[in-house]
Every structure is written in C-alpha cells, then in structure tokens.
C-alpha cells in the first residue's frame, strides 16, 4: 500500500468514527419518536385528562428523545477534538 493510500484509508476510518459519534444523538432521538408513534399510550401528554403528576412528568419516549438531544449537544466538540487529534 502506498503512503497516499495509507493516509487515505486512515482518513476514511477517522471520518467513519466522527460520523458514528455524530449519528448517535439523532438515532437516539429517532428511536424515541418511533417509539412514541408505535406506542402512543406511553406518551401520557397526548391524553392528559385525569393523569397524576408522575404520569405527566415521566414520558419514556420523550425521555429517550431528550437523551438523544443532550448527546447531540456534546457530539460536535467530541468530533472537533477527534479531527484536531487527527490533524496533529
């Protein structure tokens, strides 16, 4: 393998890692949204009448989506550090 090919394959591998990190948040959010559509009764906010405090607060599909959102906020800095480490 030439030096150019070695560098190219290394770059591709690192890009795949960056893409994987960037995809984790959106995929998690998507999982939460899909879950909400598949089991809408797990989202009590859609039918809030007569529900207690905890049933209105804890909505599992929305919690999954929220985790994905939180991770999406962290992912860009992780990828930036990955790319900077690659550059050095």
């Amino acid at each position, binding site marked *: 393998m030439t030096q150019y090919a070695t560098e190219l394959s290394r770059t591709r591998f690192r890009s795949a890692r960056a893409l994987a990190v960037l995809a984790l948040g959106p995929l998690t959010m998507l999982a939460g949204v899909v879950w909400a559509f598949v089991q809408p009764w797990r989202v009590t906010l859609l039918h809030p009448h007569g529900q207690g405090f905890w049933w209105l607060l804890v909505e599992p599909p929305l919690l999954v989506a929220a*985790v994905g959102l939180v991770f999406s906020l962290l992912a860009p800095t992780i990828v930036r550090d990955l790319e900077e480490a690659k550059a050095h």
Partner: protein
Amino acid sequence: MQPPAEHVHWLFATGFLLLGLLLLAEAIVGREVWRLRPWRAYLWPSLLFGLGVLMWPVMVFFTNSTVHMLAHSSWAEVMMLAGAAELGLISGKLRNELWRLAVPLSFAVSGAAFLIHEANPWLYSRSAFVHHVCGWTLLVGALFPLGAAFKPRSLVFNAGYALVVVAVAVALYSSRDVAPVFGHLSPSAGVAHR
C-alpha cells in the same frame, strides 16, 4: 407523591441510556481524544456516581421487602464505588489501575442483586422478566468492563461495556408494574393496566 415503581425504572433507564451513549462515544473516539477536555473525562464517572446516590432514596422509599432494600442499597454502594474509583483515577488521586476493577465488580454485584431480589420466575410478569434480563445481562456483561480494565484501548471491550449499559436501559424502559410478557401474566401478579 411517591412515584410508581415503573416510573423509577424509566427514570433510571434515562440515566443509563445517557451513560451508555457517553461510554459508546468514548469507545469510538478513544480514551486520549475523549480526555482532551478535562470536563468530559469526568462526565460519565460523575453520572455513574450520581445514579448511585439517587439509588439511596429508592432504597429508603421502596421497602417492599428486606431483600429489596438490600438489593437497592448494594446497587447504590457499588455504583458510587465504581463512579468514585473512575473519578479518582482521572483526577490522579488514585494511581493503581486495579481500581478499574470497581466497574466490573459493580456490574457483577448489580446483576446478582437483580437476580436474587426477583423471587418470581421469568414469565410471571413483565417486571419479573425485566429483572431476570437485567440480572443476566449485567452478570455476563461484566466480562466487557473486566476486559477493558486490562485492555483499556480495546474497542471490543469498551464498546461491549457501553452496549451492555444501553441494553439495561432498554430493558428498564420496558418494565411495567403489572403487565404481561409474551402473553404470560400470572393471576397472582394482579390486574394489568394500560
């Protein structure tokens, strides 16, 4: 005002899902890149420690039986121990790498506690099934953090460790207080709701 048990499972599932994603990201980019920002290095050990702290109110308020209290308190202790050990290693206050064994220890103790405090068979109810699944997942899955303790750069061990945590989160999200599992629900479990 006390939340139903299933809600507590879902809240902890949320914490474990975030923990799993952080671990997975660290496994993907590698420990060196992950620790380029000091605050990020402390992120998941702090979360693990915090989940251990939050397990204490569960122990205090959910007193179904003595074995439940013992299981919850042992979870609280080992999660705090694992989180604190990782925090100590990152900060440099702990230097012996054997402290990394605190995580597989916490997995093994948690798995055993899940299995011991679930008195009912697998298909008794959804809750019983989830507890058996979590127990065996953690017990067998302890091999991943155990491997990672000795081969900290291994993608397989680190990713496996993260995916075990995600699997436990998924199982906890599916937990219900009284619900059938694969069409099975023991009459003595109660009446299924929603």
